């Protein structure tokens, strides 16, 4: 599914250059649930941005589902993001003047799908995250956990090849964190490939594989026995 070879990325800070990623290599198969861990400054967010085509690597290869991702202009990157990727952010990033259903259907709008069809689909995904009764609620009428579930529904609505979650539980208390992880595990059980960036050990152990980043290189890459989040959810 994902293949990364010798990925380098540095940022220019005035006259200095900050080398953030110093040769990353890894592969992820279909249906994997990978946690990317590391302290702040380790380069995990940069890696996720490159995987999410929000940023481009200086050198190295990135192949997504057999498609080499390189030399993207903004328009092409936007199309690829729309087709291949789903994003879940720490601060949810729902559009606050759109209700839950409209938020979920937004990626479908950019796919050019008709209004009726995309609202139906959005409702289907809201139902999967258990929020169908909240479809017409605005984000500020939802709790944090509910917002993140709407965000997950939005990420899944476009049926992406890869789901990228950047600290999906960073803004949630532990109970709701586990609920969200339970949802992510269920989506993974259905066969979706998911990458989760986190710095919380317990969240990382709810994935199937943990990659540790430190100072821009992978220092550890291990498979773990998955802790089911459902065990913690009453």
């Amino acid at each position, binding site marked *: 599914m994902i293949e990364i070879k010798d990925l380098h990325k540095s940022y220019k800070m005035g006259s200095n250059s900050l080398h953030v990623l110093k040769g990353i290599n890894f592969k992820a198969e279909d249906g994997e649930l990978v946690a990317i861990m590391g302290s702040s400054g380790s380069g995990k967010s940069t890696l996720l*941005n490159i995987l999410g085509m929000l940023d481009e690597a200086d050198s190295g290869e990135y192949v997504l589902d057999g498609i080499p991702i390189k030399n993207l202009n903004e328009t092409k990157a*936007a199309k690829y*993001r729309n087709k291949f990727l789903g994003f879940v952010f720490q601060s949810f990033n729902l559009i606050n003047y*759109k209700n839950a259903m409209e938020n979920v259907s937004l990626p479908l709008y950019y796919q050019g799908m008709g209004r009726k069809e995309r609202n139906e689909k959005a409702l289907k995904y809201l139902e999967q995250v258990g929020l169908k009764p909240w479809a017409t609620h605005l984000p500020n009428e939802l709790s944090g956990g509910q917002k993140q579930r709407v965000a997950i529904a939005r990420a899944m609505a476009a049926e992406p090849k890869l789901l990228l979650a950047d600290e999906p539980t960073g803004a949630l208390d532990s109970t709701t964190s586990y609920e969200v992880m339970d949802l992510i595990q269920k989506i993974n059980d259905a066969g979706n490939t998911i990458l989760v960036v986190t710095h919380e050990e317990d969240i990382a152990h709810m994935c199937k594989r943990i990659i540790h980043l430190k100072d821009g290189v992978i220092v550890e890459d291990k498979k773990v026995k998955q802790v089911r989040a459902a065990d913690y959810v009453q």
Partner: protein
Amino acid sequence: MKFLFDRNTWQEIYGSIRKNKVRTIITVIGVTWGIFIYIALSGAAKGMDNGFEEAFETVAINSMFAWAQNTSMPYAGFKTGRPIQLKLGDVQVLKNRIPEIETIAPRNVRGFFGTPQANISRGGTTGNYTVYGDFPDFTKISTKKIYDNGRFLNDEDIEQARKVCVIGERTQKELFDKDEDPIGGYIRIDKVYFQVVGVHKFVPGGGFEGDGDIFIPFTTYRKLYNTGDDVMWFSIAAYNDADVIQVEKDVKAVLKNIHKVHPEDERAFGSFNLGEIFNKIIGFSKGITFLSLIVGIATILAGVIGIGNILLISVKERTKELGVRRALGATPREVRNQIIMESVVLTLLSGVIGIILGALVLAGINNATQDIDFPYNNPTVPIPLVLAALAIMVILGTLIGLIPAQRAVSIKPIDALREE
């Protein structure tokens, strides 16, 4: 262009405009005010234009009046201060010497220039009215609308010095019964019986004439008041292509020559040139129209710039939202189009509101000026001008929208989404 006809586009635009109602309203007010000023001003100017045009409708524009006064310089053995009297014979001399003259109507009047009004009576009713002694040619210079069944004075009236008269609306009202036909009826003008042949409709705005005026044949007038060949003033119309200001000078020069007045005596003859006055008034109303155009466009421009400014702030505020949209697959083009469309929609919306408000105010002005004695009529803005204003607003809205749109596109999604 396809996105223009896509309902989804409009839903997105509506959604983001609706989001911040107060800001939208304040933004809209700027342009609404601009277009309102433009519509109201240019409509009001047009009304004045129409009013003036209506006031001059009945008068030949290239016409003038000339009258005699006292000399101010001694000449040819005459001392200064000699009163000059225009004579009927002057007419032919003027016509012969000045080919640009189309018509000359010599006129006399009782009721102005120190003469008392004539005493008019019919049955037991009496009143004082102004009486003019006129030639039929006078109507070529200042048209007289005559009510049905009636007529103005004609050449036979002049030749035979008939005792006929044309009376005014007010005269009719005061001397005749309501449902009585005045035509063929008799009235007494200074104790002489005259038959009424017509009733003229009074049109305000044309000089010192009124709705009670009575016109009688010049030849009858001179018998009645024993004025001989004396003429009080000439109404003169020049041909359309003639320079009426030059004609005015020529007429005075010829009159000085006939009456043995010093060629440089500026006081001996007075004259009044309608063409010159008319040009001045037309120039004035053109100036007002032009001014309203400038003011309107400047105000619209200020409003549109306001919209651009607000959208720029709005883009900054919506950095995150735009980043999310980009992450979810919005192409730069889609983001740009959305911002530009928001700008155009806001501009157009405010424009339409402004036009409606302007039209209401013009309708109000129209109602308020219906019955007042002021040259004002039908204040309107022609539809092509309104459409042009709308087109200008779409163009300006697009142009000004380009700035925030470019700003929106230049935001990288990664920067937009970076956690604080």
